[in-house]
């Protein structure tokens, strides 16, 4: 019955995450969506470009999912990241969990995004009007 969806995709369809996480034994679903925002330190971002080491990224996402299932009592889980160029307001990542009670899905959802950002081999390049910057590359 437990179900994990892990994907790296070109475009994230935010409308289907509810049906992906819906489960007869789940009273709570928590979803986090990360999207491109216009300003980074006062400079206007034109777009973000995401690059990934796909085989490894999927493996790491799988480990994060397994860890979440071992830490919390969850029924379903989604980890989906986009690659390529994303413009302002476009979704770049969606993670979510469903559980009987709400504490578990909130805690798991926060863990999913924090750990994904920490570990999964995906790189983000900020595209400004006059330059591009690989995020976090330099101290």
């Amino acid at each position, binding site marked *: 019955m437990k179900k994990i969806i892990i994907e790296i995709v070109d475009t994230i369809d935010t409308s289907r995450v509810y049906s992906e996480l819906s489960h007869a034994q789940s009273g709570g679903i928590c979803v986090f969506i990360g999207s491109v925002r216009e300003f980074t330190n006062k400079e206007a971002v034109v777009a973000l470009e995401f690059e990934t*080491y796909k085989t490894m990224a999927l493996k790491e996402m799988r480990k994060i999912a397994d860890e979440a299932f071992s830490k919390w009592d969850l029924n379903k889980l989604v980890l989906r990241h986009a690659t390529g160029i994303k413009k302002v307001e476009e979704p*770049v*990542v969606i993670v979510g969990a469903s559980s009987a009670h709400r504490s578990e899905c909130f805690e798991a959802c926060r863990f999913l995004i924090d750990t994904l*950002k920490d570990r999964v081999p995906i790189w983000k390049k900020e595209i400004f009007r006059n330059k591009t910057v690989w995020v976090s590359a330099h101290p």
Partner: protein
Amino acid sequence: MDVLLFGIAKDIVGESRLRLEGEHEDLLSVGQLKRFLKRKFPEFSNLSSFAVAVNSEYAEDDVPLGRNDEIAIIPPVSGG
């Protein structure tokens, strides 16, 4: 030995795959590969950090490198 490059590592080296031929004999571990890269491309020393993956798993410095392993340079990740 081929080394896959991503993100800023690809920009530093100027290609997405680094072919190491004659030099290969000395590169027996992850640690040796990291030192080699910093020597050959000093820009690597300016990064916040960088990791190496062997067969798509993060690998510590003492992990040995084999001719058939898939080796990749993992500069600081920034997904999400």
